[in-house]
């Protein structure tokens, strides 16, 4: 049984993280009721490290129903926060707490029988999650170079209320490009859209269609926390993403997909490791429908732009690779049929025309008969990154708010220009691949054998 260590940094990271633990508890409790042996649960919770430079969120967790579950040894807090300043998070707190962080990570790693991967959860726009979070990432690379690092990064929307979020995001992006094995970017705006769509469905439902309330995707109800707070619905979705990625390591299936297989299959070149996640279904209708059609609809939805967790349209960009993690009573023939059906409309790069990685896990999430998580390494991230670069440049050109950063000990202006060129280089790599999209690339000439 492999374990992962979840490191949640900053306000957003900790809120999403706690949603994840909540839902995971619920999922395992549900499965346990059916008598399936579950050895994961007992050691599950020791594999968490919670970091925040303000006390509010983490202390809230300690007062709340999850207090039994976490040990104070796993927590790291300070009082004054990072002031939405990446440099404060990364350099000031990063240096001050370096040893403490490394110790806590080691402790969590030692608890694991077999450590497979580190999950890092943080937002990009703020100061702690973004700055200290990326510092933790580089510490993970230093101390545990052989363990996979998967980062779930929450990207700010254009209308983000933190003015300096473009700076924080771009500075953090550089770290992610250099030190992460995989990054799952999530955009706040997409989560908002999805949540709105779900509540529209439930208010506006046709007669006879009732949304099932107990599904883990739509509601944290039935979990440990009794009430739902504002960002909860959005955080639920991200928490489900993590649940689905780890499902094959936790439950049986006829075609297992472990975490170490994800990086190996989806990252063809070291820097191009941004994987767009999409989750279906987002809600379950309680009415009876012909099972196969609903199943096929689930596959189609996974590629529609409404189900992507960043604002992007992968169908109209170029796929480098795609992974499908299916949960529930789905067989290989259903998988094959849908891949064959959808394949013609999805543009794949010339050297990976059949680039599918598939996994079948027999246990579905609570409240659903089956579910699908798609991870796409697709050039549709390029517009998102370009927008981010534009927002950054708008501020940087006028040197707005720069002094807040440069005042921090250890922060140089070169950090900004380097981060910008790292992002530009990344965009260029995606651009290069995009250019091959329309072209018909002939097969590479084969080796000829003298006879």
């Amino acid at each position, binding site marked *: *049984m*492999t374990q992962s260590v979840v490191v949640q940094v900053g306000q957003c990271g900790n809120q999403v993280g706690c949603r994840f633990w909540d839902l995971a508890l619920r999922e395992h409790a549900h499965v346990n009721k059916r008598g399936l042996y579950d050895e994961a649960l007992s050691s599950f919770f020791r594999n968490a490290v919670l970091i925040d430079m303000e006390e509010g969120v983490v202390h809230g967790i300690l007062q709340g129903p999850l207090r039994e579950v976490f040990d104070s040894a796993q927590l790291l807090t300070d009082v004054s926060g990072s002031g939405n300043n990446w440099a404060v998070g990364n350099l000031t707190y990063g240096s001050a707490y370096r040893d403490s962080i490394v110790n806590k990570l080691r402790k969590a790693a030692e608890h694991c*029988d*077999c450590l*497979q991967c580190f999950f890092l959860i943080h937002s990009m726009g703020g100061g702690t999650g973004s700055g200290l979070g990326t510092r933790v990432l580089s510490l993970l690379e230093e101390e545990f170079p052989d363990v996979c690092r998967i980062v779930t990064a929450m990207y700010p929307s254009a209308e983000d209320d933190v003015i300096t979020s473009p700076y924080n995001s771009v500075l953090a992006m550089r770290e992610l490009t250099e030190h992460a094995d995989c990054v799952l970017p999530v955009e706040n705006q997409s989560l908002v859209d999805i949540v709105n769509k779900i509540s529209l469905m439930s208010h506006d439902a046709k007669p006879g269609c009732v949304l099932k309330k107990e599904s883990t995707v739509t509601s944290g109800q039935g979990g440990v926390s009794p009430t739902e707070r504002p960002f909860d619905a959005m955080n639920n979705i991200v928490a489900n993403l993590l649940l689905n990625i780890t499902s094959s390591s936790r439950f*049986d299936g*006829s*075609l*297992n997909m*472990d975490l*170490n*297989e994800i*990086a*190996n*299959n*989806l*990252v*063809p*070149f*070291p820097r191009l490791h941004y994987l767009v996640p999409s989750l279906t279904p987002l809600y379950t209708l309680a009415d009876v429908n012909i099972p196969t059609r609903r199943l096929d609809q689930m596959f189609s939805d996974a590629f529609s732009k409404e189900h992507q967790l960043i604002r992007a349209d992968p169908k109209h960009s170029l796929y*480098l*690779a795609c992974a499908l993690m299916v949960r529930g009573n789905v*067989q*290989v*023939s*259903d998988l*094959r049929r849908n*891949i*064959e059906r959808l*394949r013609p409309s999805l543009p794949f790069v*010339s*050297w*990976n*025309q*059949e*680039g*599918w*990685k*598939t996994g*079948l896990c027999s246990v579905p999430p609570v409240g659903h008969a089956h579910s699908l998580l798609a991870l796409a390494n697709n050039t549709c991230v390029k517009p998102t990154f370009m927008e981010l670069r534009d927002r950054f440049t708008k501020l940087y050109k006028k040197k707005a708010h720069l002094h807040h950063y440069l005042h921090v000990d250890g922060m140089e202006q070169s950090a900004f220009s380097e981060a910008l060129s790292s992002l530009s280089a990344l965009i260029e790599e995606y651009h290069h691949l995009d250019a091959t999209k329309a072209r018909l690339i002939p*097969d*590479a000439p*084969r*080796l*000829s*054998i003298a*006879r």
Partner: protein
Amino acid sequence: MSVVTVQLGQCGNQVGQELFDVMCSDARDVHRKTYSAVSCERFFRQTTQGALEARAVLIDMEPKVINHSMSKAAKSGRWRYGETSHFSQKQGSGNNWANGYCVLGPRHRDAVEELVRRQVEHCDMLAGFIPIMSVAGGTGSGVGTFITQCLRDVYPSSFVLNHLTWPYGTGEVIVQNYNSVLTLAHLYQLSDAILVHENDIVHKICSQLLKIKQISFSDINRVIAHQLGGVLQPTLTPASCGAYSRHPIGELMSALACHPEYKLLSVCTIPQMASSSIAFSTFSWPALLKHLRQMLISNSKMEGGIDWQVCPPPASAGGSRSLSAGSFNTSLANLLILRGKDVYSAETGGFEDPAIYTSWLPPDEALSLWKSPVPFNKYEKSATLVSNSQALLRPLDDMVRKAWNMFASRAYIHQYIKFGISEEDFLDSFTSLEQVISSYSELQ
């Protein structure tokens, strides 16, 4: 003579469990004492309590599949795996051949060799080894190749017949073509012969012949097990002088693996139909053999959509037959195994036609015929054809072409290099396989 099976990775362990299940039911349901005794001795051993224990070693880099296979076997009530005959780790190979071959295989070599040694010691006489694995993943392919090498080193005079499952062409694992190329190139040097099943073909058998609506991997594995069982269960061979052969693997090798450059064997079985239809069907040897022969020469590995237009080219046609020209499948050697009623009166002349073979071997040497009067797995009459022919040429070529395209852009190469193989190793593997493709293409 006993066979030791080594089940490697998820596929190997799942297929292996179905295989032992088929062979055990076949041996037990049949009311022929000698047949049952030979079959049980070959694949199982009787424990002191009278239970049947499979002569198998189960290897995987993570525990879930082995646990599942072992409990499934125990649940059958008729046979089981040895309590201590398995080896697993906590974390898989990440679908990375280099991880399996360069890191995990060597690391666990001693433990695995020990398990194999114990199984070998339980055999009065060792007929050979059958490693069962897939080529798409990391453990079956990488660790499997390494273990095959170990078997070669430790038991240099024993036969090694590798059974491989080739993945769906449309992808199960993105780097499957790399893993396949590396595995095949290495196994070609290590193995005596390589018996291949392709998921695409078996899937078609399940949907078109067995009429299964929602096909699961268990269905696929059961078809593979049925076909393999048809090859491995006891038969009377020309060399065995009226008794069931004691050297199944050796005789298979001498029948089919006549040249070191030609080791790829394909299997097809006839009839293959939904079990509910079997009772309503009548079978005749002439019809079965006629279909089987056409399946062979038109390269259709299942009975359905056979192209009856394909026929052997006239003897006078000169020039070499390239891959694309014509769909005629030339054989180097064939092994025809007939099981069931009236087996001694079956007329197999169609398979001795020199036009279907290359000119190197006289047809009576190119064809080997094994028979068993015992019906196999519910079919009153059944025939299995193991063929060393151009049947696998197209899928092999496709696999190499896709891998080469990927290699040309160096995609994913960094994932392999970090575990210890180099671009040179890749190139060597490509070269070996181009050689194999060239050899098979030029059979005429």
